[in-house]
């Protein structure tokens, strides 16, 4: 319940509060968000599998986000579009997690 409330409150505050973010920072924020989304879906999957570990989840969330931002920063400095690697990696994982969550839901409801 609390995670859903947190999400809703975050969205509401985000809509109401205008945060000045430069386009460059926007790029970093995008990658960080992708990493965060990946962690969130990973956590959802783990909780469905009854393997959810809060420390693992929070640690993964923070480290994934920071690593993603760092990779983009490194790529920008090296002149290599490294952020694509982060996008692909997190994107693939996101879809994998989604697929697994879907399977779990289907199994739980005996639709499969």
């Amino acid at each position, binding site marked *: 319940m609390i995670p859903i409330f947190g999400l809703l409150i975050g969205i509401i505050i985000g809509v109401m509060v205008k945060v000045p973010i430069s386009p460059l920072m926007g790029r970093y924020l995008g990658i960080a968000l992708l990493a*965060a989304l990946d962690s969130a879906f990973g956590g959802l999957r783990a909780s469905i599998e009854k393997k959810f570990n809060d420390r693992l*989840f929070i640690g993964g969330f923070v480290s994934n986000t920071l690593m993603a931002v760092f990779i983009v920063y490194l790529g920008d400095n090296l002149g290599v579009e490294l952020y694509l690697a982060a996008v692909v990696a997190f994107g693939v994982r996101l879809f994998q997690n989604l697929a697994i969550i879907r399977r779990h839901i289907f199994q739980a409801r005996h639709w499969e």
Partner: protein
Amino acid sequence: MEKISNYIRSAFNRRQILVGIITFILGFGLVTQLKVQGESSLRLSDQPESDLTEIISQQSVELQALRSESTELKVQLVGYEASSEGNATLVGDAKESLSNMRTLLGYVAVTGPGLDLEITDKKGFLTGFDIRQLIEELRSSGAQAISVNDVRVVVDSSFSRKNGRVYIDDQKLELPYMVKSIGKTDVLYQSVVLPRGIKDKLSAFDGVNVNIQKNESLYIPAVEEGILVSDDQ
């Protein structure tokens, strides 16, 4: 009750709150990013170089088109201005000549400077011919409008003599004859008082006296309605 309090306690445990905070951050970040992206897609400085090149070439093509259109429109405008000026001149000329015609035809009353002649004829020597000569003299000196005893003299006015009296368009003229003419006062005056001119000619008759006065503001009425045969206006 116990179930609910257990639920609340489990819902508010540390793990749940931490996850809630993380999802809060996630939601906030998502919305912020969406807003930033919505704004920045409009900003040129955030566009990639290739897009910028394309935008610039598009803009220059558009600029060319607009420039040529503006030139065309300018040419059109000049054309219209010229033609409207031409029209205005034509209309102005037409109006002026129309009003001149109306004045000459006596359709409009005229006020202006001119000569006021008072001709006394104690013995009744003067004929319509003499009056006509005077009027022709005034006309050839540029009189715009002439009246005799407040009867407008126009193109088809005629003078006649019956029983020793002068008639204009079958209207009897009472003595003295009051001849008014509007035009350039000095020119009219000179033409009348010219040596051996019309004044001398008329004054030669016994009992005839011509009294000339310059008047700054004469009024000459329009042709009387009854006299007009047809008025196309």
